[in-house]
């Protein structure tokens, strides 16, 4: 596999694509948002239980490419137990990781999410990787939000 393809489809991404974590509906969720990418028609729903300021639980549903599914799956793992402020900081860092060449990512903060740095070489796929993240933001902002990558 060409090396940039190898960077994009790393084993951990393929694994989350095959077996997404925190996949499905979240009964008792008090925040929910739907996100879609008009370019490709991908849809994702992010549901969460927000207790005070803390993302107690989070799940996602939907269909999408390996990048969007793995990103959603790993996002839910990372977000569980975080505060809203932490979630927002992670969102910003993740976005920088995908879009800024020089932006040395705060690897410590993002943890294993750094596997998505390979997406940088595929600008058209950045939207795939951020769809669930935009949707989480919409869910945090309102009880029933719609997020779009546009």
């Amino acid at each position, binding site marked *: *596999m*060409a090396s*940039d*393809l190898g960077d*994009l*489809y790393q084993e951990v991404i*393929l694994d989350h*694509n*095959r077996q997404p974590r925190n996949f499905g509906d979240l009964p008792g969720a008090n925040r929910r948002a739907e996100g879609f990418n008009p*370019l*490709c*028609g*991908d*849809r994702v729903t992010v549901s969460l239980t927000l207790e005070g300021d803390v993302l107690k639980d989070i799940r996602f549903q939907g*269909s*999408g*490419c*390996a*990048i969007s*599914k793995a990103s959603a799956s790993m996002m839910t793992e990372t977000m569980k137990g975080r505060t809203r402020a932490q979630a927002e900081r992670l969102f910003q860092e993740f976005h920088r990781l995908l879009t800024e060449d020089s932006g040395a990512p705060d690897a410590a903060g993002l943890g294993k999410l750094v596997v998505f740095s390979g997406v940088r070489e*595929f600008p*058209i*796929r950045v939207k*795939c990787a951020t769809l669930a993240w935009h949707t989480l933001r919409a869910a945090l902002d309102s009880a029933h939000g719609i997020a779009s990558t546009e």
Partner: protein
Amino acid sequence: MTRPGDLLAAAPVRKAPAAFDVERVRADFPILRQTVFGKPLVYLDSAATAQKPRAVIDTLTRFYEADNANIHRGLHQLSERSTAAYEETRAKVRRFLNATEDREIVFVRGTTEAINLAASSYARPHVGRDDEVLITTMEHHSNIVPWQMLCEEKGARLRVAPINDDGELLLDEFEALLGPRTRIVSVAHVSNALGTVNPIRRIVEMAHRRNIPVLVDGAQAAPHLKIDVRDLDCDFYTLSGHKLFGPTGIGVLYGKAALLEAMPPYQGGGDMIASVTFEKTIYNRLPHKFEAGTPHIAGVIGLGAAIDYLESIDPEGRAAHEQALLEHATRRLAELPRLRIVGRAKEKTGVLSFVIEGIHPHDIGTILDREGIAIRAGHHCAQPLMDRFGVPATARASFALYNTREEVGALESGIRKVLGVFR
């Protein structure tokens, strides 16, 4: 043996095209001679937009270098040349579609605008509350949304004729949906997402028996099939220049003269008027009534060059090549594990849509791209059709006259690579 008079007699007759030779055709398309990520470009996205032959590119350059002027208004030499070239193209399109009169050919931006024009100028005065517009499941969004907008405005209903699992229109059900309230039928000649060729003549017969006019979206048909609007007897036919190896931003609405005559203008402005006072405007005659403003003159002339180019190629040889290529690709891909072809109509042209179990079409598209292979991955502006097949998207390889068996081979090995990544 040449006898005196033979040459003279033969002079007005178009030279018979040489036998089809794909390598010679490829040499006419400069863009195909390039590598992408170090691999020879394999362009399998002609259903999205076709590549342009040198003849079209040169015509555009020559027009802007030598003839550019506004049309239908200048007294000067350049304007006369531009106008002549523009109107000659109208005659060329008329011949290409076998329409009766030049004035039945209206230049628009593309199929989308052509359908919007027909929906607005023809259908709006004819569709009322509880009336119906009939389309099919396999339509492109551009043949859904304009009708939906009209139906919403009028309190009318959009009816949708179903298809079978192979992607073929169910003709009996289509006919059953033609009712006393049906005001227009609008249907694709060839489906952009499946490649299905619809039986337009039978559709038109069924509709005309009930005095219902038919619009045919020919965007995907014109690059592959011989179009004869008189034989089809359709009332409107649309095409997009850029899918026909011509420039973007130019297309055609064909309409029967009697229908176009009776229709109000689509847009107001210059060129579409005979005289204007602040009290009253007299509209220009056909087809200028529908061509408000300065049109895409270069685009029209480029489209003319594309038609000339196509007509210089042996039509039977070309059709046989394209059909053999599609059959070959279908056979090769059908043998791949986990792969399912979406759209297996008996009558197909140009398009091979597929899905692979457990692999999203976008991932297929990205990996193929790194192999230099350009395909489309997504819903192909036909979301209701994707829903019909229960898939969010498909990968689509589409073929044109310049594609080869070697390129099908590259596609096949590219897909094997995809299968290797997503084991």
